[in-house]
């Protein structure tokens, strides 16, 4: 028997994943859509993109990321709705409340998935296994959120294996992967079934003769580190595959920004500047929401002919107000080459904790801060863009904030504005 050096620790990590979260929430709210192929999009239009598809739609071959026309070609009865952030927030908040009632150590990975860490909770668990708790959470989701809501539960000794287990038997599955069934599990999977391994990593592994997860597991650490991944990532994968925790790290906030796809690509500077101004306003709001100040700024654009342009600048002093972000972004944006712009984006980097509480000896700096505080308070109280810069007049009407993918850091900010 081959010795793999697996982590034999009791599996105490639980991964919870809402099945087709947005689509299922809509089916929960609309009983007439249950059992039908349907999806959700951010902005309803002829060529809009599907951001969540129901299981009935997925069964027909309709995938997330498809255009509406492609989905309609597969299924002419395909139903599509616009997103409703407030509704998904209720589902999210209730899911978080359920998870927090079992352990204080939870981390939401995105709006529809989270991780519960039961380390240190063994005395509280008593005789109950994590599988018992998993089934109880499934039932509570049905009782407290809605009877149509289904979740996948995965249990493992580390975050990677817990997530793999959650995706093993979709929808509505509950699986445990530990040292006893890990090798058998890998035998049933493809390399791209592993989270974090997509086509490029697969090609790299294949070029070293690693064709399956089992061969990946059997590969020596030295080979992964020195040859395949050429770095510490190889060691991480070596340990991750064996059930050792690698991914319990807090991500560092590196940049804050906004980007926007221009619906009708244009070279009209007046139109683009108004949109840039609005993007800078939301970037400033994000900076203040995260309680940071920035020193660096980058503005970028993609052109209709496929070209990409970006310009970066580092400043000596930090900034956080909308006006300051826009002023600095404008200096760079005015240096762009001429052409029809398809996408524009702005982001701030070199972030440091906010020092707004310190009084400034310069009166104009203090005035800027008071003005920003006043505008933020008015917008918090009265809702979306009640007060905004005149430069953003056109942009405010055109650029809409929609559902954020990935992290949930800005969800509260989005809801204030929705």
């Amino acid at each position, binding site marked *: 028997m081959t010795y793999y050096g697996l982590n034999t620790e009791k599996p105490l990590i639980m991964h919870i994943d809402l099945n087709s979260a947005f689509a299922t929430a809509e089916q929960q*709210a609309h*009983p*007439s859509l249950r059992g039908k192929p349907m999806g959700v999009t951010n902005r309803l239009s002829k060529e809009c993109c599907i951001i969540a598809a129901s299981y009935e739609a997925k069964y027909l071959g309709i995938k997330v990321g498809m255009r509406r026309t492609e989905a309609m070609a597969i299924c002419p009865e395909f139903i*599509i*709705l616009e997103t409703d952030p407030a509704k998904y927030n*209720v589902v999210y908040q209730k899911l978080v409340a359920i998870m927090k009632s079992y352990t204080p150590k939870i981390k939401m990975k995105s709006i529809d998935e989270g991780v519960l860490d039961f380390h240190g909770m063994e005395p509280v668990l008593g005789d109950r296994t994590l599988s018992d708790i998993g089934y109880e959470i499934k039932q509570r989701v049905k009782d407290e*959120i809605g009877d149509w809501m289904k979740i996948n539960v995965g249990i493992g000794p580390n975050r990677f294996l817990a997530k793999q287990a959650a995706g093993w038997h979709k929808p509505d599955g509950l699986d445990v992967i530990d040292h006893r069934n890990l090798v058998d599990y890998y035998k049933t999977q493809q390399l791209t079934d592993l989270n974090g391994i997509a086509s490029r990593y697969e090609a790299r592994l294949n070029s070293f003769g690693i064709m399956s997860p089992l061969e990946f597991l059997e590969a020596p650490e030295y080979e992964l580190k020195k040859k395949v991944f050429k770095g510490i990532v190889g060691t991480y994968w070596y340990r991750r595959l064996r059930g050792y925790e690698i991914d319990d790290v807090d991500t560092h906030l590196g940049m804050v920004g906004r980007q926007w796809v221009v619906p009708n690509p244009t070279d009209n500077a007046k139109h683009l500047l108004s949109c840039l101004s609005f993007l800078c306003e939301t970037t400033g709001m994000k900076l203040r929401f995260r309680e940071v100040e920035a020193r660096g700024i980058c503005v970028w654009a993609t052109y209709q002919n496929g070209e990409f342009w970006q310009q970066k600048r580092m400043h000596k002093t930090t900034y956080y107000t909308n006006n300051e972000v826009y002023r600095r972004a404008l200096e760079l944006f005015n240096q762009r080459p001429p052409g029809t712009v398809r996408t524009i984006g702005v982001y701030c980097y070199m972030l440091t904790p906010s020092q707004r509480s310190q009084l400034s000896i310069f009166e104009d700096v203090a005035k800027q801060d008071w003005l920003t505080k006043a505008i933020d308070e008015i917008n918090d*109280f009265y809702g979306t863009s009640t007060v905004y810069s005149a430069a953003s007049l056109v942009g405010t009407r055109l650029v809409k904030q929609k559902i954020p993918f990935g992290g949930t850091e800005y969800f509260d900010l989005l809801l204030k504005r*929705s």
Partner: protein
Amino acid sequence: MDPTIYINERIDVVLMFHANSSERLTCVPWKMRYKTREIEFTVFGMRHATQKGKRMVHVFDMSDGVNDYRLELDAEHLTWTLVSMVEGVR
């Protein structure tokens, strides 16, 4: 296709307040009158609270077994609005 029909009209609603039920079902619309028709709800979809400016609005997604209705209670003015409906297949 988007099956939503937008209505946005004030309606009469009869409510049920349950003393001993889960938080989800504490307050549930029972029936409504819309254009002289009385519609009784048989399925409770979801309720969520949201804000329109400073006003708190409670959104109820209800169904009479065939069609789905989105009702909004303006918590400041205590008015009920039938916002939209989705026609099901009978």
